[in-house]
């Protein structure tokens, strides 16, 4: 599809969105909101009252976050686009203490794998609590972290280096992978991320490298297991279309023999350990990389190989494509991918530098709307509502209904990232039902104050209510056909009659639910 964002907005009858953001949402809002003009509608009113707000800023905010939360647009307006990009690219400079307080009760997040195995192991309570905390914390972070880009990149790498939480010992080990592998490197050097991932106990279990031993090293048992080697080349680095063959896979598998984890009865249970006796110490030749590893390299064989893979141009292309697909479009412009790959290589596999190039590109600015994947859709609804969450297993179960629980994709390729994979009737219905449930206050453990959210007078007209809801939740008009449907819903036969308190209570949740369920909200 070659439609640009601009075309899309125009074809949806939304050109007025380019006129900007209502003043009362920006940093210089008047103390009390102005009544919405009737009957011209909010969009026309906005043209008269807005100055200096930038539609590109809303686009930027939509792409660098899980959707704007109340106040985010004002903050963005104050910073301006360049500073907003800079801020989000440097999460370490952002104070996230409010989120940290919400996570204070999640004690397993900071425990070592050894401590988790000790407390939740076979003699203990079982791993359910570990998984519960990890999944709930992931949702809380997506919703409440000020380091929104960091959270998006955590999601990107958690899928690129996918580990299924349900597989065997992974249940005890994924917490450390999330904390020590994915998060510290999410905006760092891909080479460091890849090396950390290769030594991640959760990955070693998930892709069976713990079973990968030099043939004959364990009497009558074991031998090479190619699973990690294959996925390392195919999914993590070079890509399936790169020219490597089965001999290369075997050689890579031999490199990683003996990369294992400490058993529960050993020191530092559940952490990485290199077992020289199980390692194939003979020389290795990986033709696809032109790499010869002399005999006796031990654990350094793997470290050399991973560094080489990370800075291979084919890997650069794949990582660049993945990042462009996430932030620009499911089929990103080839020229942008090429430039991003060059930046990745020139910057020594720096993810931050690559993202910065993408964010500052014309292709990014002109990107057409994308479908929010389910996690994104839920997080953005909660954010838009300014919802307060009382963590509950049932809220995480909502993601199950939507089809995208955290770390819930069994296969090593991670959740499908293209919108087309998610557009089906069951998925649509699930999104709608989540929208109506949240708006009606039926979200498990979720509270949202809709009256406080919408800058409306005591007795708004139906049109005023609808425009206020569009402004607060979409930050742009909803389009004329949808608008008139909403006005009919809220005002019935008398759309111009002020809604009294009882009428407002009756229709407010419906209006909010319909806006959240609308295509314009489900896209970004």
């Amino acid at each position, binding site marked *: 599809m070659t439609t640009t964002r601009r075309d899309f907005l125009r*074809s*949806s009858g939304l050109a007025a969105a380019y006129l900007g953001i209502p003043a009362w949402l920006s940093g210089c809002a008047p103390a009390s909101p102005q009544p919405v003009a009737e009957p011209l509608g909010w969009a026309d009113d906005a043209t008269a009252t807005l100055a200096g707000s930038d539609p590109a800023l809303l686009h930027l905010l939509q792409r660098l976050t899980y959707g704007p939360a109340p106040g985010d647009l004002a903050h963005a307006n104050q910073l301006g686009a360049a500073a907003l990009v800079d801020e989000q690219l440097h999460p370490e400079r952002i104070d996230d203490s409010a989120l940290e307080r919400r996570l204070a009760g999640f004690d397993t997040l900071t425990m070592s794998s050894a401590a988790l195995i000790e407390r939740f192991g076979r003699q203990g309570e079982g791993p359910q609590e570990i998984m519960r905390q990890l999944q709930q914390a992931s949702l809380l972070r997506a919703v409440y972290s000020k380091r929104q880009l960091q959270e998006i990149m955590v999601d990107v790498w958690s899928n690129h280096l996918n580990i299924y939480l349900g597989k065997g010992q992974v249940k005890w080990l994924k917490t450390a992978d999330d904390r020590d592998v994915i998060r510290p490197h999410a905006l760092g050097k891909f080479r460091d991320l890849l090396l950390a991932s290769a030594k991640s106990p959760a990955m070693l279990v998930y892709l069976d490298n713990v079973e990968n031993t030099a043939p004959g090293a364990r009497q009558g048992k074991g031998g090479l297991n190619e*699973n990690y080697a294959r996925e390392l080349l*195919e999914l993590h680095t070079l890509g*399936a279309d790169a020219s490597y063959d089965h001999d290369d896979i075997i050689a890579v598998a031999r490199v990683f023999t003996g990369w294992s984890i400490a058993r529960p009865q050993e020191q530092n249970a559940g952490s990485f350990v290199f077992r020289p006796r199980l390692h194939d110490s003979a020389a290795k030749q990986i033709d696809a990389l032109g790499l010869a590893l002399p005999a006796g390299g031990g654990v350094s064989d793997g470290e050399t190989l991973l560094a080489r893979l990370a800075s291979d141009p084919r890997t650069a292309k794949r990582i660049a494509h993945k990042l462009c697909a996430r932030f620009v479009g499911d089929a990103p412009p080839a020229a942008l991918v090429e430039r991003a790959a060059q930046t990745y290589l020139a910057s020594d596999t720096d993810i931050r530098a690559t993202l910065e190039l993408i964010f500052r590109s014309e292709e990014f600015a002109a990107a057409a*709307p994308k*479908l929010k994947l389910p996690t994104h859709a839920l997080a953005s609804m909660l954010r838009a509502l300014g919802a307060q969450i009382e963590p509950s297993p049932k809220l995480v179960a909502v993601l*199950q*209904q939507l*089809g995208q629980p955290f770390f819930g994709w*069994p*296969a*090593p*390729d991670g959740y*499908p990232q*293209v*919108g*087309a*994979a998610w*557009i*089906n*009737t*069951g*998925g*649509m*219905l699930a999104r*709608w*039902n989540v929208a*109506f*449930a949240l708006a*009606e206050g039926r979200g498990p453990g979720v509270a949202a104050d809709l009256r406080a959210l919408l800058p409306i007078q005591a007795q708004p007209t139906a049109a005023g209510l609808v425009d206020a809801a569009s402004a607060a939740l979409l930050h742009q008009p*909803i389009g004329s*056909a*949808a608008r*008139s*449907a*909403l006005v*009919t*819903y809220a005002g019935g036969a008398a759309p111009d009659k002020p809604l009294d308190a009882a009428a407002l209570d*009756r229709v407010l*949740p*419906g209006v909010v*639910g*319909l806006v959240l*369920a*609308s*295509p314009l909200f*489900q*896209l970004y």
Partner: protein
Amino acid sequence: MDHILICLFQRGGADGLNMVVPHGEAAYYAARPAIAIAAPRPGSPATAIELDGFFGLHPALGDLKEIYDARQLAIVHACGSPDATRSHFDAQANLERGLISDHSETRGWLGRHLAATAGTSDSPFRAIGFGALLQPSLRGSAAVAVRDLTQFTLRAKPTDLPRIRAAHGEIYRGEGLLAGAGQQTLAALALLEKLNPGQYKPADGARYPESPYGLALQQIAQLIKADVGLQVACADIGDWDTHVNQGGSEGEFAANLAEFGAGLHALYADLAAYHSRITVVTMSEFGRRLTENGGGGTDHGHGNAMFVMGGGLAGGKVYGSWPGLQAEQLDGPGDLAITTDIRDILGEIAQKRLGNPDLDGLFPGYNAFQFRGLVP
């Protein structure tokens, strides 16, 4: 009237050797001292159910004998995907993609079939997959993904629902990325409302297992009887990854198998008037190793048995050439070899039952189709 394909996936790698037992093979009994199913002995319920003097059904599959005898059930043994992987994930993904090695293909083989025959129906229930996520085989088509039709409803405050629905329908009218899926969802909701799935009464003698699998089959039958234009339905049954404590004629595997067979029989009984319009096909990502392991179970293997059920099939027969179970006849680490590529079976069904001649579109790159005559 449309023909209907019901595709059942045994997730986890079902043990075909204990499902359809090669009781004529001494090597089978030698390799499985603890879990083998005894050769048929009339009057002994813990022994295999005789099929043809060489193969027998696991005793938990007694329900299926009636269908086999009625020639509406065909079995193909030593069948499967030639893909050598023993990984569940890879094997399932590859099979559902139609054994295309290109991982960038996002559509499944059924999705490609549905896309190729899109002109034949515009029903919102043309294709349905039961489960939390759409089966990958159905990807690429506008299939409904649903866990339970009785839960497939738009939920809003009841007094407000009609007005919500009206406004919502207007909002999803028109053009745009989501309008099509939105309208289709609304059409499916409207159709289901008339159907009232909570009130369904199966025909006499049809008893669906009380499980997600049984519920899926019952709701597939209901959609078929309601004549909503269903053409392809997918459902899953799990827990086949029997590495430990598999059991023999009784135990975990037997209980799972009983559920599996009871579901097939319930479909057969419930849909008696529709047999000629229906093809049920079962598959699993791979079979299991011949030799039982130290934990009373079996590890990932290769070749497997599959069932094909429907009116007008040349059933009552075990198809496939038997590769044997001697050491030199086994595949890889000691597994039943594959002598029938599953694409031969699925291709024959697609072409001769579903009327889709473009097998290359379903299974690109495979051009060695050999139909086995299951569909006369």
